[in-house]
């Protein structure tokens, strides 16, 4: 059997051709699949903006005292990069594109529970994005994506309020989507789709949605308090006004640590689907996989203090947060081992989605293991706020979340568009990305170990060699990110028709034509067995 292969013709009556035509048909759509496409287009744009900012940063760091952009511009670049990549790419990436498109299909529903609200969340997201772009046009913001006080409230002369407003508004898009997904999973499952028959991707989106709903309001409140102190001089975080700067860090990380799981849990869900199809086996330890995601979501709320070991929090708080941080690593370890065990005795195909999934497992493992260094307080004391941390979270968020996002896009592309893309090019891009990623970020571990602090545009000359390697890697990475844009785009016109199930995968979404009709299924599905019912010899 050759995988992928064309399994039928392009479905003429699909969500793209049905429904109201033209731009209005898109901007006023209630179809979860179209909202997913709207989100995908928007975040692709934001990814490009964030990548340009990253390029400025990496170019500056080629020289220890580069003068080609001003220090102010450098600070605004890494701030913009962080804000855009975190809130306008990573957070919505998998949940709002693949999640939106696939969740109803995977559980056999016609749409999400609240289709109008779904569209509304996109408008909120775009409004937030508009504020962010306005911030850029007005001259940018220089606080770092972390908005630490009292710098952000009393000292920065840039457009903090505008930037915070963008994040604030986009946060509501998260809350609304999270709620929508939770209600959808609870109420819209097809007959026979019991909880433990849900694909792991659905579990992942479910766990993520819970985190989105519970954590994001805290971020919103914190940003409001920043505005209050900055505009009205109410003393909350600035000691000169009677406030406490460490309080801000508690609030901020109470959201931002769980936010890491908003980015990573969906990636784990995607990876589970990709691996099961790539090795044509049932996932090893389905229940452990589902529970471990819920476990991560829950314990993830209790570890925020590991960002503050040197911030002046009490010694006992640090001890507790350290222990809990090790605890949250356990379910992550389980997942890695279970993915490996799933490969055992499989029939492995090395198609592009599988390569991405393998890349995810490898990079996530490295990112997770270096996270253990940072969970150990005594090591964190010397490693925190250096490039070691930068490398660590890029391994999780770029090596992990972005790899999985792209793997998912490749895997479900035939479903979404009805077309097959060029597999050889896609495999090449996946491998190039893996290489480029490691060349970019591995040297940063070493830099951090040697003591190079973050957010330095001007650094001691001994650090130069490794920085040059890192920047060279970023160039490779840029090529690897541009490639899919080209061959995926081309497949829309040139691609062979995919038919309903080019991967011969299990899962309800593969039982309907590609692209799916407006109502998802020609006939309401009834579920009789669990996911991953692969019987390939």
């Amino acid at each position: 059997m050759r995988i992928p292969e064309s399994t039928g013709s392009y479905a003429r009556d699909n969500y793209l051709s049905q429904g109201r035509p033209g731009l209005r048909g898109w901007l006023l759509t209630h179809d979860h699949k179209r909202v997913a496409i709207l989100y995908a287009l928007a975040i692709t744009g934001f990814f490009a903006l964030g990548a340009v900012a990253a390029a400025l940063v990496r170019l500056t760091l080629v020289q220890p005292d580069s003068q080609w952009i001003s220090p102010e511009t450098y600070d605004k670049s890494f701030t913009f990069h962080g804000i855009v990549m975190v809130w306008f790419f990573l957070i919505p990436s998998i949940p709002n594109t693949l999640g939106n498109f696939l969740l109803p299909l995977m559980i056999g529903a016609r749409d999400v529970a609240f289709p109008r609200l779904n569209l509304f969340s996109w408008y909120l997201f775009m409004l937030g994005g508009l504020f962010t772009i306005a911030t850029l046009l007005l001259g940018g913001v220089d606080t770092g994506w972390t908005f630490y006080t009292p710098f952000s409230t009393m000292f920065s002369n840039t457009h903090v309020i505008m930037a915070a407003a963008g994040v604030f508004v986009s946060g509501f898009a998260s809350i609304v989507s999270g709620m929508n997904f939770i209600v959808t999973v609870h109420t819209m499952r097809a007959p026979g789709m019991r909880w433990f028959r849900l694909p792991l991707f659905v579990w992942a989106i479910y766990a993520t949605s819970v985190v989105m709903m519970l954590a994001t309001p805290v971020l919103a409140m914190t940003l409001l308090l920043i505005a209050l102190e900055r505009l009205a001089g109410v003393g909350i975080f600035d000691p000169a006004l009677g406030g406490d700067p460490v309080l801000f860090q508690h609030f901020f990380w109470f959201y931002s640590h769980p936010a890491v799981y908003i980015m990573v849990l969906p990636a784990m869900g995607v990876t589970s689907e990709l691996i099961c199809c790539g090795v044509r086996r049932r996932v090893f330890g389905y229940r452990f996989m589902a529970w471990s995601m819920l476990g991560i979501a829950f314990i993830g709320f209790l570890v925020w203090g590991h960002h503050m070991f040197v911030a002046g929090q009490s010694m006992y708080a640090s001890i507790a947060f350290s222990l809990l941080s090790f605890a949250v690593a356990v379910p992550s370890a389980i997942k890695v081992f279970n993915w490996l065990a799933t490969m055992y005795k499989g029939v492995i195909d090395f198609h592009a989605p599988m390569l991405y999934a393998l890349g995810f497992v490898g990079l996530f493992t490295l990112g997770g293991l270096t996270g253990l260094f940072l969970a150990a307080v005594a090591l964190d004391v010397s490693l925190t706020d250096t490039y070691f941390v930068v490398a660590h979270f890029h391994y999780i968020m770029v090596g992990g979340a972005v790899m999985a996002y792209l793997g998912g896009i490749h895997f479900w592309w035939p479903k979404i568009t009805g077309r097959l893309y060029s597999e050889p090019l896609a495999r090449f891009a996946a491998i190039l990305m893996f290489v480029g990623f490691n060349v970019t970020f591995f040297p940063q571990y070493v830099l951090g170990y040697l003591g190079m602090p973050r957010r330095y545009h001007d650094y001691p000359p001994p650090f130069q060699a490794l920085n040059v390697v890192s920047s060279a890697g970023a160039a490779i990475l840029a090529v690897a990110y541009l490639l899919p844009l080209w061959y995926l785009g081309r497949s829309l016109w040139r691609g062979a028709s995919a038919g309903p199930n080019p991967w011969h995968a299990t899962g309800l979404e593969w039982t309907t034509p590609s692209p799916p009709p407006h109502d998802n299924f020609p006939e309401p599905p009834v579920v009789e067995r669990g996911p991953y019912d692969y019987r390939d010899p």
Partner: protein
Amino acid sequence: MSASSLPQASSYAPAVDHLFDAMLLLCGAVAIGVFAVMFAFCIRYRRGHAADREGGNTRLGVELAWTLVPFALFLGIFGWSIGLWAKLRTPPADSVPVYIVAKQWMWRVQHPDGTREIDTLHVPLGQPVRLVMISQDVVHSFYVPAFRVKQDVLPGRYTELWFTATRAGRFPLFCSEYCGVGHPSMRGSVVAMAPADYARWLHAQSSPGLAARGAELFRRFGCSGCHDPGSGVHAPDLRGLYGAPVPLSDGSVVRADDRYLHDSIVLPRSQVAAGYAPIMPSYQGRIGEEDILALIAYVKSLEVEGGQGHAHP
């Protein structure tokens, strides 16, 4: 990551490096293991390659094993690291204090004898040094890679860090918490010297002493007008105050440590001593953090006369 590029220059550094090396070994082994298994499976079970593919379903025992074994390992690392951390948080009794005031974008250092320096900190070898740090504006972080120590420096509150330098030389000091456009220029060095050299260096600076400067400021800012025993204003006598328990007007009792003295000067209303009217003016924004440190040193230096402790009416 050779030791030559990152010297071990404090008593703490080798201990941290042991833990780091152990972690590197353990995590490196796990990473290599994961990659090796992945490759092995990829080769053995690739499509078209004949291999035994019978059985191999979910087994609870296996899963429990790879839940519990990592957890046990994690507990081990946790315990090891906490032991080191507790050491870092308990300065030895014989450590000498040095005061650091951070501001955008420099480090100001005050030695107990009044010697002041900027962006450089001289310390004697073998002598535990306890840094008492505060920021005049935003959050900064005091980071000396060669010592493997780092501590954020906060506005409005003292934080502490101690180390014992074990190797002579000049070691880079970085600000590692982003603090605005000058953040990367907030660099300096720690110079560790043999005790004799250090004594000679200190002697050459010949400054009046921190407490003496504080006494001068105590008069200049009008503190003496209220607090001198003969002033006629109903204000507490500060002799013997340091370290003593202070009953507050809200009924609670606090110990008069550095933080209490700092807040008494900057935010007198926040903790009013029992039996006194809250008439002391706030000096917030009127006295710099360095001068506050000098004032505190002066208050600390006020001895108890005639065996009488710090008395509250």
